[in-house]
């Protein structure tokens, strides 16, 4: 199957300069970007060996001697292209704060406890139907210095590869109904409401496991359309 990658679809992305998020003004290009037709270099993209994902990489609650504290959750969904077709064998990497809103990263000094049983990194590959699944704990909100009393809504960072180097996506998955949405300049850097809501997972009772874990569903759409339009 041959894919193309319309740049118009990028209108769903946030602008590189989004002054409410105060780290953007000194880190965004200021000169016009060069427009070009995609060449073989842009239309190709990496594939990864079978050993890229090890059994257990998708369970963030089983990486240490004990179980992490917090609310155990299942996060799952499908990776699709712009035609709605599943993207099989897509690498999905995630990282997140622990249940207290603390990252294990050395730079994070938020005075909330680290959890010796939680690193917060996971890795999975989609199956033939584009489906992926992680088991983790629900991350906490955390403060950041962007503006007075700034708190990030709870989120899980997602990194994905699709059909080409230009379908590469790094995003954040949010949880439904978070009261911090309206105050968060990163979430609101996406100006289109429909696009913004595509970053919000949905509570999934059907896949919630009784007596064990709530489930959240997060479907991801990557750039890429088939050269031959689908019928109907």
């Amino acid at each position, binding site marked *: 199957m041959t894919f193309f990658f319309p740049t118009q679809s990028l209108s769903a992305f946030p602008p590189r300069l989004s002054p409410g998020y105060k780290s953007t003004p*000194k880190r965004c290009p200021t000169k016009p970007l060069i427009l070009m037709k995609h060449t073989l270099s842009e*239309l190709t993209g990496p594939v990864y060996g079978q050993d890229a994902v090890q059994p257990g990489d998708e369970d963030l609650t089983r990486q240490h001697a004990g179980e992490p504290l917090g609310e155990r959750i299942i996060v799952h969904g499908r990776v699709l292209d712009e035609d709605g077709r599943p993207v099989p064998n897509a690498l999905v990497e995630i990282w997140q704060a622990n249940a207290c809103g603390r990252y294990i990263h050395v730079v994070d000094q938020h005075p909330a406890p680290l959890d010796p049983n939680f690193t917060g990194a996971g890795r999975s590959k989609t199956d033939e139907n584009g489906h992926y699944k992680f088991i983790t704990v629900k991350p906490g909100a955390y403060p950041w210095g962007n503006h007075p009393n700034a708190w990030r809504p709870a989120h899980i960072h997602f990194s994905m590869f699709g059909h080409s180097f230009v379908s590469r996506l790094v995003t954040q998955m949010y949880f439904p109904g978070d009261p911090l949405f309206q105050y968060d300049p990163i979430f609101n850097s996406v100006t289109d409401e429909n696009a913004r809501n595509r970053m919000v997972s949905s509570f999934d009772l059907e896949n919630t496991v009784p007596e064990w874990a709530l489930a959240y569903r997060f479907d991801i759409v990557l750039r890429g359309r088939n050269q031959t339009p689908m019928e109907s």
Partner: protein
Amino acid sequence: MTFGITPSQTVGPYFAYGLTPNGKYDWKDTFGNNLVTADAAGERIRIEGRIFDGDGAPITDSMLEIWQADAQGRYASPADPRPRNSTFQGFGRTGTDAEGRFSFETIKPGSVPGPDDTPQAPHILVGVFARGMLRQSYTRIYFDDEPGNAADPILALVPADRRGTLVAAKSVQNGHPVYTFDIRMQGDTETVFFEI
């Protein structure tokens, strides 16, 4: 019917333990900055540089990813059907250090097919991610010892006075070829980025 794509969000300041742990965290790297495989033909090279923000300060929390063809100009991708003769994958990832430095060990790519059967000079695609970047920026690394640069159809799209920002400078260190490629997000010598 088409589906709207999921918007990009920043990698933020804390991606390293998940994406570039590099021995500092209890997690295995998915990708590293050494692309060389034992069976890869071609000239082994090092690419190194620094990345700077609009104040000229090093960006110490960015992630760079590169994507390139092998020495024969072939990509290890289903979208390039030409047969290859090595396990060279052509994808690398690294974080930047406290001085904004990065490096890759790789092989020099060959010339790649371009639009309308015009060959492209050897080049490497770069994706730049960082705190403060809500989406990745894309640039290209060309090589200053390649005569094909003069006829490259993509360099031709770039204003002549900015092309130099895309061309890595060769030196030889301990007998090993090194290409230096600095990335400047802003300023008079702002690196050229592409809307792709």
